[in-house]
Each structure stands twice: as C-alpha cells, then as structure tokens.
C-alpha cells in the first residue's frame, strides 16, 4: 500500500493547482489555504518517504499497472528521497511566506496555480524513471517558471521572462534531441532499461554526441558558467517567493539532479565527462563570486551568488569520490535552505522599503530585527562560517578535492569562499548595519507569516550540520550518495526492485 505515495507527489500539486484556478477567484482566502495545505502534505509525505526508504529500499511504481520497461515507471531511490525532501520542505515554507507577500499583487490564485504546477513538474522530474516523462515534467516546470518570472508584468519582468523563455527553450530542445538520439539507439525510454542496453553495447560515438547535448541542455538549466546569462535577469525579476524557488530548488531539480541522473545512472560517468564538469564547476565558482562582488541590486547579487554556489555542488559531485559526492549533495541541500532564506529576506526588505538597491538601504537592523537576524544567519551559512550548515558541506568538498589530488580546484574553492564572505559582508554592512538612512524611519517589520517562514529556514540553517550524523537524518545523505555511486548498476537495482 505504501508505494502509492510515489504518484501522489505529482497528483497532489496538480489537483491543488487546478482547484485553485477553478475556485480561487470566487472564494477569498481559499487559494492561500489550499496551497499551504497541499505543500504541507507534500512536505510531510517527503519526510515519510525517507523513513519508508530506510525500511524498504528502492521502490519502483508501475503507473497504470503496466510493468516496465514497456510501462511508465516511477522510481524512488536514495537520491530521489534527498531531492524530494529538499524541494517539498522549501516549497511549503515559501508557500507560507507568499500568504502575506503576494497581497501586493492582483490575481493571487493565478500565482498559486502556476506555483503548484511548477512544483508538480519538479516532483515529476525527480520521481520519474522514464526518460521522456522526465522531459515532459521538465517542460511543465520550466514553462510555469517562465510565466512566474513575468508575473509582475512590468517592462523589466517581461524582458527577463522573454530572455529566460528563449534560453530555456533552447536548453529543452537540446535535451529533447539527446533523448531522441538515445531512443533511436537503444529502442527504449525507460532509464533503467536504457542504462542496461547502453552497457551491453559498449562505448560509441552516439553516446558522446548525446553527452554533449545533455551537457549543454542541463548546463543551461542549472546555469553553469558558459550557460549562465539568463539567470541574473530572470531570478531577480520574479516575485521574491518565486526567486527563492527558482534559485533554491528549480535549478537543482531540473539542472543538477537531472544531470546526475542522466550522466551517472544512464550514460555512465566517464572520466572525460567528470573532468569537464569539474572544470565548468570551478569556473562557475570563480566567475559567480567575482560578478556578485560588484552588484548593488540585492536580488541580482544573490542571483550571481547562486551561480557561484552551484559551482561548488557540481565540483563536489564531479570529483566522483564518495566523499566528494556526499559533500556536493549536502551542499545542494544546504544551498537550497540558505539561498531561499536570503531571497525571502530580500523580498522582506523590498516589501518594507520598496527598494532593492543596497545603496539606498542602511540601518535596517533596528527597524526589522527578524529579517536582519535571519539574513545574518543565512549569510554566515553561505560564507561557510562554523557551525552553520554551509561550513560543513564546503569543508567536505574542499577536503575531498585535496584527497583526490586536485589542489588547484581546492585552492580556487577556498579563495572563492573568502570572496563569498566578502560580498555577504557587503550586504550586511549596507542593508542592515550602519546609520539609518533618511526616509526609512517609518519602515516596519514584515507581517507574521513572512516572519514565521524566515525563522523556520534560519533554524534549518543552524541545525543543518546535524544531518551529517547518520542516526539523526535516517542516513539520508549516505543513501543519496550511494545511489549516485551505484552508477550504471541503476538498471539492475531498479529491475530487481520491481514487484
């Protein structure tokens, strides 16, 4: 019976989204309630999924009762559990934050409808065991995110959304082309079956071509450096809760997760691919940090910082060693917590003062104590100050780099970490410390729900380091890194788990 949990991750947000579209306009406050209840149910289900995974191991769900490889499969392994927890817990807190924040926009129910559709798409990408379904869910999430970036419908937002839509569609086309080649080569769309078929046929030119296409496609989705140009426009233009979702979880589930799944589990991670990913990751770390330093727009700075931090995640995972993968995945989880918190902070500041320009702020600490203190926690976490969660994951990644003998990568990572500290000190100094600027004397702290979700995320930042103790997290991180390390055994494991 418990296996029916899997399709609910897609079904609940879809049903809630369309109920919102149908009834949200007529019944006031219903869309707030519906979205909060649905995301809470999903967050609870994702935590239950972790406990379930500990007992039963890998679960394969046959959609419609048709057995894979003919039928569509949904697969839950360790990596899936980690991603589900990350996405759904953040989505719940963001949804609570939106209750107050979205009051300043009209047509709130449309916002919730798109938000839940995006969530359904992300959960679908994570849980799907079928290559084409992965693409379909990826498009659902991507298209709703294009609409959400344009939600303010001002000139700047529409321009950013158009740029994002063009780049995103380009990425989707690369991914679709890659899937087409793989399908014509292996005659199957089931990822487990595909992985076994590719292993049987050995190395070939077509796999190389597909690798390049996927590298471009998922690289664009996860905004790694040569493909990052859309992110600094798109993420700041969206409403703050959506910026938090985009930077916090969307680029990870559509970009990083899909990339790991395809490269490690299906195509097989060759040393060439890993070294390319490692180089791209390191370049992202440096370029992201340098560009973030020069920004004066609060949200734009955070957007560049996302590029910087995604570089760490990719660097860790591309090391290919158990410690590196553990560190990369842990940093992925941590980054989604503190980056969402920072975007929510920037939203709170914008809500209270009406500006995103750091030079126009100052001394907000006395007027907005909750926002200031939570953002201090998040800044310390992202800069890697002990004992916050960011410290542990960055340390693991750097230690793993040194262990694997990549001293250059390790030293760049350390240097960029200092730059991260520098640009977040800049945020703290200009926005929250110092003299209170004129015209800001009437600023008030934000409403209750916004405060609640910021405090909850700050607590997660502080407590995040405890996840490294396997007893406390239910072995979440180890199970996830094992799932990545299993690599091409994915096919055997999935077919072994079909009941």
């Amino acid at each position, binding site marked *: 019976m418990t296996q029916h949990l899997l399709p609910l991750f897609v079904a609940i947000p879809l049903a809630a989204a369309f109920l919102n579209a*149908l009834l949200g306009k007529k019944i006031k406050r219903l869309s707030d309630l519906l979205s909060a209840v649905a995301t809470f149910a999903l967050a609870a289900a994702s935590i239950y999924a972790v406990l379930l995974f500990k007992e039963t191991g890998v679960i394969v769900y046959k959609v*419609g009762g048709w057995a894979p490889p003919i039928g569509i499969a949904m697969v839950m392994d360790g990596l899936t559990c980690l991603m589900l927890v990350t996405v759904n817990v953040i989505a719940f807190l963001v949804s609570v934050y939106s209750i107050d924040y979205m009051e300043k926009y009209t047509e709130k129910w449309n916002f919730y409808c798109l938000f839940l559709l995006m969530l359904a798409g992300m959960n679908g990408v994570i849980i799907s065991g079928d290559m084409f379904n992965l693409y379909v869910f990826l498009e659902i999430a991507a298209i709703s995110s294009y609409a959400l970036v344009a939600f303010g419908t001002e000139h700047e937002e529409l321009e950013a959304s158009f740029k994002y839509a063009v780049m995103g569609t380009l990425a989707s086309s690369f991914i679709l082309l890659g899937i087409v080649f793989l399908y014509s080569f292996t005659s199957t769309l089931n990822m487990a079956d595909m992985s076994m078929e590719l292993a049987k046929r050995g190395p070939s030119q077509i796999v190389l071509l597909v690798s390049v296409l996927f590298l471009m496609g998922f690289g664009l989705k996860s905004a790694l450096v040569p493909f990052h140009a859309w992110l600094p426009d798109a993420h700041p233009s969206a409403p703050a809760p959506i910026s938090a979702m985009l930077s916090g979880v969307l680029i990870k589930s559509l970009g990083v997760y899909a990339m790991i799944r395809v490269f490690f589990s299906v195509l097989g991670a060759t040393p060439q691919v890993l070294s390319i990913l490692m180089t791209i990751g390191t370049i992202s770390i440096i370029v992201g940090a340098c560009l973030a330093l020069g920004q004066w727009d609060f949200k734009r700075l955070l957007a560049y910082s996302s590029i910087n931090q995604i570089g760490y995640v990719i660097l860790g995972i591309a090391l290919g060693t158990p410690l590196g993968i553990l560190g990369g995945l842990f940093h992925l989880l941590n980054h989604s917590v503190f980056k969402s918190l920072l975007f929510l902070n920037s939203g709170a500041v914008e809500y209270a003062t009406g500006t995103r320009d750091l030079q126009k702020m100052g001394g907000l600490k006395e007027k907005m104590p909750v926002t200031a203190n939570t953002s201090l926690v998040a800044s310390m976490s992202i800069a890697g100050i002990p004992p916050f969660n960011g410290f542990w994951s960055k340390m693991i990644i750097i230690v793993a780099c040194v262990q694997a003998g990549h001293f250059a990568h390790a030293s760049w990572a350390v240097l960029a970490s200092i730059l991260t500290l520098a640009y977040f000190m800049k945020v703290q100094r200009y926005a929250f410390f110092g003299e209170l600027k004129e015209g800001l004397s009437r600023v008030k702290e934000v409403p209750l729900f916004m405060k609640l979700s910021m405090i909850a995320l700050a607590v997660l930042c502080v407590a995040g380091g405890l996840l490294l103790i396997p007893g406390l997290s239910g072995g979440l991180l180890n199970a996830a890194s094992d799932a990545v390390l299993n690599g091409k055994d994915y096919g055997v494991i999935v077919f072994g788990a079909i009941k």
Partner: protein
Amino acid sequence: MKEQDRGMTLIVKTITRLTVGLILLFGIYIVSHGHISPGGGFAGGVIVALSFIHIMLAFGKEVAFKTVSQKVASVFESLGALIFVTLAIVGIGYGYFFLNFLAKGEPFKLFSSGLIPLYNMAISFKVGAGLFIMFIILVMFRVTKKGEGE
C-alpha cells in the same frame, strides 16, 4: 456600429452559419471516437475550439462572447484538467495510479476500452477551452508604449 456591420461580409457570415455546427459536430465525433480511430482528445479539442474561433472571425468578438464567454471557457479548462487528475487518482483505489478500472468491452465498439473515452473528453475540454482563451488573449491585448493610451 450596427450589429450586421461588424465582422466580415455577408457571404462569409452565411457560409459560417451553415458550417459552424458541422465543424463542432465533427470535433465531438473526433473526441468520442478517439479510442477506435485516429484523433482523440487533443485533435478533437482543437476542432471544437476552431468552431468558436470561426464565429469570432466571421461575426466579431461581441457575438462570439455571447456564445461562450471567457469565464465559461476558463471554468471548462480547469474542469478538464481536474477530471483527468481525479480519474487517475481514483485508479489508486483499484490498485494503481492511472489504472483503467472500467470494463474494457469489445474492441472497436464505441463503448469500449474503459476509461480512455473519458480521458479523451477531459483532454478535449482542456485543449479546446485553452486554445479558445489563447486566441481571445491574442485578439484582445495590444502592446502599448509608455505614455500612450489604449
């Protein structure tokens, strides 16, 4: 402007009056026979939407809104998606998500293949209403530069 002056010429209006019912009927036929012949919810939904778009092109948008308003179309769109998800979730009660739990019947008969005709119907609601709304939006919204009035 008088009502008969809106839209296109008399020839177009007369032909539209004659054909529009047939187009709608053909759309419904494609939807309802989706499981036994080429076509289905998507293709049928597009044809149903085209019949309303046809009215709008020939008679102008005021007449078209009298037959189907934007609000009604939007309700149908959400309803279609909801029916689809609900049918899929009901399947869990019978054993699996998306399980086809109705009797399959005899192949190539109109009332056969269990839930598939219902899924087709839900898709046709979603696609038909969605396409109609998209057309309305493209017709109604005009890009204005800053400072320029409507």
